[in-house]
């Protein structure tokens, strides 16, 4: 079966600087509807941007997909699946799904899951990696048990420093470093980090990590380990490739540096930063002079809530505060809406800017780093006023 070619109804052409933005729309992936095909094996599937105009929750069958290694179990037996908890603990655990479902203290909240490299295709100069446009993100209501409850049951030993997560996916070639991610013990025990078994009230699609995945609200998706089957409590800092080398950012404001700059200290990527998008007006759309239009979109605060969204219809000269939609929780997408009466003909730049509740504002110049991480520049949509 050829994903994409045989099933593609259409394609998109992302306006990446320097091109190579054309992608097929694929429908051949299990549990998934029409998705932007970034890579077939292992699957990298992007959410078509129009989905974000339909509501603040991203449907499971349109939620982006991102795997590193191609050996992904295609069958999961819910009776025999086990989650192992071991390492620096008093009592190692082997939990079945029934054990996890039976645990007290179940929690549920909305949270944005965003790839560290979301929007990488817009970096200038371009950088290697998954060439995503803006759709490597989604918002869902996650249901599960707090990681803390599982760690407390195992009894984390004094002196433990990190908790490392591993899933069922494995590399094709022996010797490739297994994909594992770690959090500090304190973060892992904050009561919010979750072992999730439901996404928008439904089981997770296999490609989003069935039967359970980690949810680390406010942090980039790289930590949200899918098909989570192993939790190891470490008494030393994790030095594995996926923490120490991959997924690191310059330790500078906005994770920004100059191309070719050397000697920049690097740290593991961590908290998300605010972003906002116009979702109902496309780049290049035509508007009529004097005709009022409602401009709407989504915003998220990153590691805290949305305090304010501002909209500019004149390329950033004047900003007005947008009206915010229902608050679904501080880690969720939030709707915003503004009104615009085009007053000048020609090409106009619509801009949107989010400030989070910690006071962090989207910057007006794009950041750059060699891995293409953490883009959150103010987005601009050009329209023609006729």
């Amino acid at each position, binding site marked *: 079966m050829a994903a994409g070619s045989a099933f593609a109804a259409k394609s998109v052409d992302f306006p990446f600087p320097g091109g190579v933005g054309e992608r097929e729309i694929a429908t051949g992936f299990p549990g998934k509807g029409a998705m932007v*095909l970034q890579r077939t094996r292992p699957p990298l599937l992007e959410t078509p941007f129009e989905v974000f105009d339909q509501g603040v929750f991203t449907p499971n069958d349109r939620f982006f997909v991102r795997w590193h290694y191609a050996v992904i179990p295609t069958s999961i037996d819910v009776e025999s699946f086990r989650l192992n908890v071991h390492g620096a603990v008093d009592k190692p655990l082997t939990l079945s799904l029934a054990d996890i*479902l039976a645990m007290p203290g179940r929690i549920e909240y909305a949270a944005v899951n965003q790839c560290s490299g979301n929007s990488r295709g817009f970096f200038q100069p371009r950088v290697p990696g998954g060439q995503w446009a803006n759709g490597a993100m989604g918002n869902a209501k996650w249901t599960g048990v707090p990681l803390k409850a599982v760690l407390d049951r195992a009894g984390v030993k004094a002196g433990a420093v990190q908790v490392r997560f591993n899933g069922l996916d494995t590399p094709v070639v022996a010797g490739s470093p297994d994909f594992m991610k770690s959090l500090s013990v304190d973060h892992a025990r904050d009561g919010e980090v979750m072992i999730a078994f439901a996404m928008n009230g439904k089981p997770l699609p296999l490609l989003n990590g069935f039967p359970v995945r980690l949810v680390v609200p406010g942090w980039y998706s790289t930590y949200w380990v899918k098909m989570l089957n192993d939790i190891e409590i470490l008494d030393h800092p994790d030095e594995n490739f996926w923490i120490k080398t991959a997924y690191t950012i310059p330790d500078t404001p906005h994770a920004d540096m100059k191309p070719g700059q050397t000697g920049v200290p690097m740290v593991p990527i961590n908290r998300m930063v605010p972003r906002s998008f116009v979702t109902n007006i496309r780049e290049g759309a035509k508007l009529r002079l004097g005709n009022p239009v409602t401009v709407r979109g989504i915003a998220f605060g990153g590691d805290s809530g949305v305090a304010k969204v501002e909209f500019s219809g004149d390329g950033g000269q004047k900003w007005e505060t947008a009206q915010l939609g229902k608050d679904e929780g501080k880690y969720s997408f939030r709707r915003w809406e503004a009104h615009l009466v085009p007053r000048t003909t020609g090409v106009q730049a619509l801009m949107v800017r989010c400030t989070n509740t910690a006071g962090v504002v989207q910057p007006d110049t794009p950041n750059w780093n060699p891995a293409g991480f953490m883009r959150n520049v103010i987005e601009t949509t050009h329209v023609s006023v006729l």
Partner: protein
Amino acid sequence: MTIRTVAGVLLGACALAWPLAHASAGAPPAPALRSVSVQLPVSKRMFPGGAEAAPANANCLTCHSAGMVLNQPSLSKATWEAEVKKMIAVYKAPIAEKDIAPIAAYLAATKGTD
């Protein structure tokens, strides 16, 4: 933010379904979890260009489909060479020393900036 919390409820015989009727008030319900079995699509896409593309086709399709490489932007020859060497050093790609230069040359010629 709103985090809904619930007290634990004893699980019934139906191990992996959460009987809604038994859940305490305010409990976020869990869907029944059923075993799944799926098939993932395969890609038949090859690196274009005949003989020139042969080393890439022989060495670059083991771990990921061609889209990983073909969807990359134009990159400098040095970057392409570094990518091939990264595949060997980090992911242990079994690529012969003699194939590195031809692969980097092919990628620089078809997707290069210099």
